[in-house]
């Protein structure tokens, strides 16, 4: 009896669990893409026309048939300045990025760090069936409806599982394909706002007002979530154009004086233009 027990006792010692060295585990990074969405059946440009009424009306409508659209990611949430969204622009006939017309925002929640899944230059195809097309502040948007803090129904983000089933990544990201359209002060007219937003743009030789001030000043206990600054383009001041969220990683960074080249997402809220830096790297200081 004693020997039996000792043997069993010794046997339990061999059950010592081997703790994994997790670093050596291979991780599957090919994640979160739908498969076999199919070939595009429409374009972003056509989508803007087909759904112009809900876009203009700041409303939304359900897409109840297979409509597959393709676009290139030009902006994402890498710094937190753009929230729960990626922005895509169409592919021109010559295969380059279409900079003649604005694209769409695609809103997604439940995952965060969208830039890791949809980096700039990533081509995506979206099957719009069971998703909604409309706008947020008249900026074209693909997403799902939600109830905002005022109790109104608005177009907001789709859930993460919907993203997985509706959005397919096509190939590897090609940053070189992403060209920003140069914008002047004259371009920022009321007539143009429907056409050129949302779009990746570049503004050259510009200055930002409030040099020495943070991009988005955070106040203790304040209800400030964003801040606007003027941008002077070619001597023409465009008021309250540069938008920065207090949640962005560069919100506390100080605006430097002098001329700059600024890249960013040119968007709109209703009849106002908004320029959002994708990250602080969108600012190229010219030192003048």
């Amino acid at each position, binding site marked *: 009896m004693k020997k039996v027990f000792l043997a069993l006792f010794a046997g339990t010692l061999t059950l010592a669990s081997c703790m994994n060295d997790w670093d050596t585990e291979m991780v599957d990074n090919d994640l979160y893409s739908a498969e076999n969405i199919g070939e595009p059946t429409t374009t972003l440009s056509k989508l803007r026309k087909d759904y112009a009424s809900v876009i203009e009306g700041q409303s939304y409508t359900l897409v109840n048939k297979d409509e597959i659209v393709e676009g290139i990611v030009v902006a994402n949430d890498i710094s937190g300045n753009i929230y729960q969204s990626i922005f895509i622009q169409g592919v021109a006939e010559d295969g380059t990025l279409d900079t003649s017309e604005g694209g769409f925002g695609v809103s997604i929640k439940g995952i965060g760090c969208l830039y890791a899944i949809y980096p700039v230059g990533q081509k995506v195809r979206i099957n719009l069936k069971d998703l909604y097309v409309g706008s947020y502040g008249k900026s074209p948007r693909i997403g799902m409806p939600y109830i905002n803090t005022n109790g109104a129904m608005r177009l907001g983000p789709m*859930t993460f599982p919907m993203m997985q089933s509706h959005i397919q990544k096509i190939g590897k990201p090609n940053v070189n394909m992403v060209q920003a359209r140069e914008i002047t002060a004259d371009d920022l007219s009321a007539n143009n706002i429907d056409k050129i937003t949302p779009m990746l743009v570049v503004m050259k030789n510009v200055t930002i007002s409030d040099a020495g001030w943070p991009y988005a000043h955070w106040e203790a206990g304040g209800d400030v979530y964003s801040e606007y600054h003027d941008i002077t383009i070619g001597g023409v001041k465009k008021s309250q154009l540069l938008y920065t969220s207090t949640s962005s990683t560069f919100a506390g960074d100080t605006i430097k004086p002098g001329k700059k080249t600024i890249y960013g997402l040119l968007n709109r809220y209703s009849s106002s233009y908004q320029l959002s830096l994708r990250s602080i790297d969108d600012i190229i200081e010219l030192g003048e």
Partner: protein
Amino acid sequence: MRKGVTLMAAALCLSTGAFAQVVKTDTISAENEDFDFSLTEGQIDEDAEAASTITTISSSKDPYLSEIGFQWSAMRFKYRALDNAYVGNYINGIKFNNAESGRFSFSGITGGLNDATRNKTGVGNYEQNKFSYSPLGGVTDIDIRASHYAAGNKIGLAGTNRNYVLRANYTYATGLMENGWAFMGSVAYRWAHQGVIEGTFYNSFSFMLGAEKQFNDKHSLSFNVWGAPTERGQQVAATEEAYALAGSHYYNAAWGYQNGKKRNSRVVTEFSPSFLTTWDWKINEDTKLATSAAVTFMNYASTRLAYNNAYNPMPTYYKNLPSSIFNVYDENFNNADWLGDNPGVLSQWQNLYGYWTGDKAHRQIQWDQLYAVNEANNATGGDARYYVEKRHNNQTVFNLSSILNGKINKRSTYTLGVNVNSTKGMHYNTMDDLLGATTFHDYDNYSLNKYGSTSSYIQNDMDNPNRLIKEGDKFGYDYNIYVNKVKGFGQNQWQFGDFTINYSADIEGTWMEREGLMRNGRCMNYSKGKSGVASFLGGGGKLMLEQKIATSRLYVAGSIESQAPLAYNSFVAPRIQNNYVNDLKNEWFWNVEAGYQWYFGPVSGKVSGYYTKFNDVTQQTTFYNDDFSYLTYLTMTGIKQEYKGLEAAISVKLARNLKLNLLGTISDAKYTNNPNAQLSYEGSDPELVNMINAFTPIKDGTNQPLLVFMKNVKMDSTPLTAASVGLSYNINGWYFDANLNYYDRVYISASRYLRLSNSTEGGVQGFANNILEYNVNTGTTTNAWAKAKASAAEGHAAYVYDSETGEVLDGYSPESEKCKGGFMLDASIGKSINLRDGKRLSINLQVQNITNNTDMRTGGYEQNRKDRTYDYKFSKNSYYYYANAINAFLNVSLKF
């Protein structure tokens, strides 16, 4: 686990040559010696934070205390709702409660060593105590002198479906040999690749070695060393919605699949080796001096998945749940018509519901995703967005105790003692796993967007700004806490026939200090270096009067005690700054109780009642504020609490071998005032600190003391009502026990944050005392007090203030949630078989929760966020813990 196996091999290789000519002594003969109830390891949640949940005092003289720890352990019963810090745990007369937190770590100090720690003396608060000045909740002393172990071998094997699934243990003792030496050794191993909760695991090796030399009949010296290196994966609480989606109250969100394998994010590693020596001096027949010294090196670390400007990776994050889509609790939205008009909302709810219920992997941590994010971020040169940090809470503890027991005359005994404790706590954070990321810099990412990348405010260590952190490096915070205590006490008992008077007193000095090892940018002038020593003098006294009446005893007792606040609660934001909380002072309490204990033939038992009042208690809660991305410290001072109740334990011998046992308590334990509050966010600068602590009931008026409205909030996570009826039967060496237990009035922990007097998060409202509202329809007038009470009844704390000064006159708190009561049935069966040559085989099977009641909540906590307007309701989604489902413990042991 290699370290554990190596240690055990070393233990087994102890020289057996010293075990010569064993003199077999059997100094221990407890009735149930062979039956391993393994209460302290098999049934407790060994999370250090939950060490407050169990009562293990087992006083053999007190039929109530001797039963409740075991009977009600499934519901994590706390004796009189008292925190574990009010229960003393001693070994050879040395107090092993943690000097910083006050609590005793069962898993860290004595885990797995059931056989080695079997020689226990448990006493209640007022019972004669020969080794300590008992705290309010009673005290246990474990005797580990080698000569006090029964000579021989004992080997045991156990299988169970609890935190671990397999246990093996071996104990050997020589007993006191003719040459005056005695040796003992005990080893145990507990293991589970996966425990009863999915995603948990358990690896623990325990050992104890002891030697004692009796020089003569007056002096003996003993020495023990023990420890239990342990690694285990934990579980976390979840909301009822998450449990429902997972289809189980035992859903655990702490783990996820990584490339197909289960990986737990909350792993505890601990090893606290202790070295203890005891010198016993029998001065004369009636006088004994026992002096012990001990050193413990506590190593405790727990991992946690952390994120940096990224999406919360916990699967139970509210945005992942279907009820985050719309307000499912509002019939204006949750009806067929509205959802029919808004199919997009319904489809999102269904989509998330289907995602959660469709695949187990979906409701666990997405490790692969976290790696994917980090690896994509590497390309941008950015820091890890997700990582696993390891929080270390180590200590070096020195203890000294000297206890003198003697007799004044044949009617009077006394105990005098002195205890010294010196503790250095070392607290720091290390990078455990970068999850595929290549860089991480030591600055506070959540301060980055507020102060900018060039601001010194964001630095965690200004002397090493933006330090690049590799796996294993310290980062974030690094500080020491020093606690020194010196206590003297005395006890005297007099017997005058059947009347006994027992009185005792103590005096204790406490000194504490923080030493910061990093200069934090948000507290640059008061983070690095020493805080300065805070000193406290405490003490008190007790008196018990007892009258024996035939075979019964009647007693009344009372005590008053003042004691230092715990170091754990005494610093505003201990990870980053040296400041003490405001108004830090001793807490004090007084207690009265009375009881009657009897032995009347076949009926024996005890009934008692108690009342305890606490004043000036200091408590600190720490939580992560998702809304503002801050670690938040909320300290309450000046707390008043009240504890009262009735207890009963009755045993009726129905037949020679059959006993009926009844056990029960009805109690109340609550806060009785609205204490002062002090709030700190870890990422905050002094301006923000001032702002969040400001409280001006009158706009632009005088700042008033910040309060937490806690009045009448109940103590949480223990049944305030508990009852058992059971049968015990023994025949021919067989033991049968069955107990039906009823538990009720378990409250979850109330959110202090939402009850802050200035809390906009909590929707706290103030009403000027001079308001009167007249309702023309009903003809009734409502004053400020009625309005405040109505607000509290609706779930928002409220207060009445003086319209001229702003002073708070009264404050009202919403009730915390009471969990539904219920029954649990437990049983055990065992047999002891005498074999040849003095060997004995013991078999015991315990089954707990036989009816598999999976709906018994043991506790939980409210969330600290305000409801979102039209979707997620935090107030409807508290986090809960549940008692285990049906579980069994089969133990077979052989003594030879």
